[in-house]
């Protein structure tokens, strides 16, 4: 397992990219990031349109930044000041696209052979055998991509990219559409392959589940910028940006005004918009009167049918259940306390409390379940 920040070794990928693109009928898209990717898996996380794929295209050489510098190991692949722009063919950067882009007219084996031109035939065959075995797809050699199932297609796309022994691997949501178990099995094989090689792997995703499952380092992006870097816990549990909070699955995103700061207790009180509802949240960079946003996970809120006493939780808010919606094994309660909260309950809890729409309810929020986020 890599440590946070990773080891700064010779195989590291570093990219500083500035790129502006005109968009019809709206403000131009601006990508302006600087990232460092050490050996091991780093997740590039952010909502759709954050610029993740464009960044990968720049690293692979398929898109050209207006300015910046991209370095893999010791070699500069792109340097706008020095006038360096290595073509994608010469970068030795493997790139697995979301659509995989397997050549439909070639068998799985021919696909894997494709990147190995100009190598003695025996060595080629040995390499292909080895990688097909590493990704458990030897039996599919002769099949065309259309005759292969989804998860196995993804394995072949990985094998095709990695057989060339690249120095960096870029993955653009390659496992979307697979169930968690299949995904985990493929990632395990990828990790196993990488234990000996130790190359940087940049894995793009916009879903929270994948961040949790792959967990090592996360770089969070939004609107063309890096907004957070760290372990999945650090980045996702306390998101500092509103849009990231949305992507990370914070169901309650509330805006409010700071009433006062209690530095000694490390807390401040926030009055939620258009209500008399006041909650206590951890102290943040704000002054009384500032507008702030608070993110709370629906699963972090407790619901009681009578007013609770003698609790350590500082926020107890009275409200009325507006709706109870069952979604599989989860009940989503909408509770109006002046502002509407979303609370996740289990069907069992709903039964034992005998909850129904229109009932009075008290919501209990721990101070540290309330996360301050930026716009």
């Amino acid at each position, binding site marked *: 397992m890599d440590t946070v920040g990773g080891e700064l070794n010779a195989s590291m990928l570093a990219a500083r990219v500035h790129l502006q693109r005109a968009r019809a009928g709206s403000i131009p898209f601006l990508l302006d990031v600087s990232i460092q990717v050490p050996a091991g898996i780093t997740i590039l996380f952010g909502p759709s349109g954050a610029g993740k794929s464009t960044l990968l295209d720049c690293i692979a050489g398929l898109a050209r930044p207006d300015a910046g510098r991209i370095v893999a190991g010791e070699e500069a692949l792109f340097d706008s000041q020095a006038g360096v722009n290595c073509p994608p*063919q*010469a970068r030795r950067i493997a790139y697995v*696209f979301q659509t995989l882009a397997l050549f439909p007219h070639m068998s799985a084996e021919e696909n894997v052979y494709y990147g190995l031109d100009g190598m003695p035939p025996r060595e080629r065959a040995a390499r292909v055998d080895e990688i097909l075995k590493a990704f458990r797809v030897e039996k599919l050699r002769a099949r065309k991509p*259309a005759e292969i199932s989804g998860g196995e297609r993804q394995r072949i796309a990985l094998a095709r990219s990695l057989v*060339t022994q690249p120095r960096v691997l870029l993955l653009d949501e390659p496992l979307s559409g697979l169930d968690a178990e299949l995904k985990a099995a493929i990632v395990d094989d990828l990790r196993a392959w990488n234990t000996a090689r130790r190359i940087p792997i940049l894995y793009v995703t916009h879903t929270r589940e994948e961040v949790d499952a792959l967990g090592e380092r996360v770089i969070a992006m939004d609107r063309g910028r890096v907004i957070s870097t760290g372990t999945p816990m650090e980045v996702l549990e306390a998101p500092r940006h509103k849009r990231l909070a949305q992507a990370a699955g914070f169901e309650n995103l509330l805006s409010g005004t700071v009433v006062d700061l209690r530095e000694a207790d490390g807390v401040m009180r926030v009055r939620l918009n258009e209500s008399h509802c006041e909650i206590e949240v951890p102290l943040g960079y704000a002054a009384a009167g500032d507008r702030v946003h608070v993110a709370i996970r629906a699963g972090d809120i407790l619901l009681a049918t009578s007013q609770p006493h003698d609790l350590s939780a500082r926020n107890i808010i009275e409200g009325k259940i507006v709706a109870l919606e069952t979604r599989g094994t989860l009940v989503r309660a909408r509770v109006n306390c002046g502002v509407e909260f979303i609370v996740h309950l289990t069907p069992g809890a709903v039964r034992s409390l005998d909850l129904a729409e229109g009932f009075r309810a008290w919501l209990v929020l721990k101070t540290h379940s309330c996360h301050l986020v930026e716009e």
Partner: protein
Amino acid sequence: MDALLLSLRLALCVSAILLAGGLPLAYWLAYSNWRGKFLLEAVVALPLVLPPTVLGFYVLVAMGPHGPLGKFWQTFFGHGLAFTFEGLVLASVLYSLPFAVQPLIASFESVDRKLLDASAVLGAGSLKTFWRVILPLSIPGIVTAVVLSFAHTMGEFGVVLMVGGNLAGVTRTVSIDIYDHVQSLEYADANRMALVLLAISFAVLSFVYAVNRQVGRQIGRRLWTPWAAN
């Protein structure tokens, strides 16, 4: 049967030349980012809308003893171009150009760009990408291009009449021959020739659709035809 053999020879030459020249031209038209590309696209499509006599007229003028093509040919080969088989080939190549190039462009353009990106990051240069990815995935378009330019050349009339005239064994093609017979009220002869042409056209189109099914099933793509553009 002289006329039929001549037409077949002409059609073979023309489709071979159009295939060889059409591939790079279509590649460039499909992938170039040049701003003025639309001009060349218009030039390539021109024979589709131009009356054959207009095209034939200008080609004839260019091939004449005072035209640039005619002078050039005279210097290198010692004879003119007008009313010769070579002249007829050249005129037919121009006339059938869109029938070869447009299906090629359409099938090149419909190759998924991500496949080209994948090929590039796997280290392949544009020549390898063309031979190993673009070309195999464009087989239906290539078949269409060859077949259409062949069939179109077999049946052409106006351009041949303008540029080639009506010299037996040199420039008298099937369609001119049919016209001749009708002019001389030899309806039986005209009918025989017309039937041959009809049979060839039908066979050619059946072949195109059969290939379309077969290859389309294999690579999951459909053939481009001018009457069912994809």
